[in-house]
């Protein structure tokens, strides 16, 4: 057992202290507190996969914006005598040309931009229609839920193709029809997912606590239920993006997607598929761009989800 060593100061050390004097200096330095966003960002920074994805997506975004101002060729300029050039065979067409002799690189750039815009829009629709719809349905429950769910059943039962055919006669090809088609169909799953999640969350005591504090149902929905469904929302968004891109491909295929001769990733995939056995690069190029983008979106999504989940923060 130890005994104090400095015998000189002994007596003084063993004197009572007036507590009021020391409490001011209590527990030394207060550790710094980080805000929610700082923490989330910190967490994200340590997720390598997510960071690589983020950088890649930023790169794609920058390139897309840059392509507004400069592209190697006019993506629609045809040069039928140089059609179906393989990649890396002609210096001025690094990624080759398509069946009408258009520059694949420029078309990819253009198509990526268009598809990203579509994806962005679809996400907006999901968030502006699907999320509130699901929230209301799951949170209000009972009769409201019943009615809203029946509406969803009806909406999702009417075949997408019939609706698209209708759009076809009402609308001209272009963004408007794509947007409408997406608005008509894409939010339904999001709504159901959010509803299910909301139903689960509302049984937690903190919802009751909020009620006890006199929060209105609306406030509870947006302050408590919504943030706790974030994981589901982020995850679903990762699917909305490719779904929208493919829906556009279908629309283009039927004739109301992007205006000919403009490209989107969807139309590039469509044409690529047709000649797949002979001009494989025409399929692989858009597939590669899309896959990389999707993978990046998903890894980033995972990272975000984890970063915004307070229960798991601090780990790693």
């Amino acid at each position, binding site marked *: 057992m130890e005994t104090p060593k400095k015998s000189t100061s002994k007596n003084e050390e063993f004197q009572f202290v007036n*507590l009021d004097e020391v409490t001011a200096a209590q527990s030394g330095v207060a*550790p710094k507190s980080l805000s929610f966003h700082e923490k989330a960002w910190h967490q994200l920074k340590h997720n390598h996969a997510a960071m690589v994805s983020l950088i890649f997506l930023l790169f794609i975004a920058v390139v897309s914006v840059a392509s507004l101002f400069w592209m190697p060729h006019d993506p629609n300029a045809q040069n039928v005598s140089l059609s179906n050039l393989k990649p890396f065979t002609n210096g001025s067409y690094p990624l080759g040309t398509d069946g009408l002799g258009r520059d694949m690189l420029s078309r990819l750039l253009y198509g990526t931009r268009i598809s990203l815009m579509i994806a962005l829009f679809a996400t907006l629709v999901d968030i502006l229609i699907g999320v509130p719809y699901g929230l209301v349905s799951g949170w209000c429950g009972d009769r409201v839920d019943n009615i809203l769910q029946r509406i969803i059943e009806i909406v999702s039962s009417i075949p997408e193709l019939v609706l698209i055919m209708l759009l076809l006669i009402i609308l001209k090809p272009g963004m408007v029809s794509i947007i409408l088609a997406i608005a008509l169909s894409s939010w339904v799953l999001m709504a159901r997912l959010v509803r299910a999640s909301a139903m689960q969350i509302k049984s937690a005591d903190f919802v009751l606590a909020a009620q006890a504090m006199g929060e209105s149902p609306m406030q509870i929905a947006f302050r408590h239920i919504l943030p706790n469904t974030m994981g589901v929302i982020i995850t679903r968004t990762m699917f909305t993006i490719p779904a929208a891109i493919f829906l556009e491909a279908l629309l283009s295929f039927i004739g109301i997607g992007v205006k000919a001769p403009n490209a989107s990733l969807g139309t590039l995939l469509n044409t690529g598929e047709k000649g797949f056995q002979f001009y494989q690069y025409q399929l692989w190029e858009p597939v590669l761009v899309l896959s990389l983008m999707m993978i990046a979106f998903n890894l980033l999504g995972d990272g975000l989800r984890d970063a915004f989940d307070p229960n798991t923060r*601090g780990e790693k």
Partner: protein
Amino acid sequence: MAEDVLTIKNLSVDFKTLEGTVHAIRNVTLKLHPGEVLALVGESGSGKSVTTKTVMQLLPKNAEVVSGSVEYEGRDLLKLPEKELQKLRGNDLAEIFQDPMTALDPTMRVGKQIMEHLLQHQDINKEDAKKKALAIMEKVGIVNAKERFKNFPYQFSGGMRQRIVIAMALICNPKILIADEPTTALDVTIQSQILKLIKQLKDELGTAVIFITHDLGVVAGVADRVAVMYAGRILEFGSVNDIFYYPQHPYTVGLLKSTPTMEMDGGDLESIPGTPPNLINPPAGDPFAYRNRYALKIDFKKLPPFFKVSDTHYAATWLLDKQAPKVHLTDKLDQRRQHYAKLVEKEAHQDD
């Protein structure tokens, strides 16, 4: 005395958080004798649960054992491979978790959750497992056990859930039972049943128990020895009588004083002012110094060592140093002791 069943030596555990490293427990040394109940009491947030989770090797991912060892049957649990640990957990080492509300799988019938435990560790068929499970449910005081067997956790009140959790821990007759506030959610009658159950387990099977609680009444009833924790450290340990009748550390005294009793009248209750230190930057000296009315200067600078009070009783406070001024901390407690002594006598008379 026989060899200790569990020896925790110099255990320190940190949590990595974004704000810094939380030094949740520091240099904790504890021994668990066979067949004893060791009560762990102390400030909430003082690291009691962390200590037990370290023993079970169920720390969250951001935890890091900085130093120390946990020896069980000659093996260091901290170094055991996961497979071996799985064999020990639930069978040799059982834990009753602190929060009964969330400790049960909401989607599984409680009966099945209890049975699962048995089936995992014992070579037993389902029928027998069910019988055993029902028996233990009745034992922990669940009426209508047969019907309740099929219920889901959400259909139980907090107290009932807690009993289920306890049933699960007891069902395999563990060698060491860690009970983290097992009766917090229970009413006193059930609580006393549970305590009896634990005592019975200890007496019949020689199970050693680490019992965490805030209720000093419970401690008095169930414990053989007591360790007092504060801010990640053990401040004092000794037999129940040592702690209740001769507390040495001002914190222990404070705890005892703030325990209400039925005999008290309004205004009698004392409390310890202030808040415990932040464990990211724990103070260098006695962590309790800032709230200690009898704090010495040295308390702020130097960690007090354990001073021996008796063979069984040690306390880490500079007040026990020979040079320290003598203080008497326990006036009120003495009164209380005398009061109960009378009652004890009365009981004894009645028994005659």
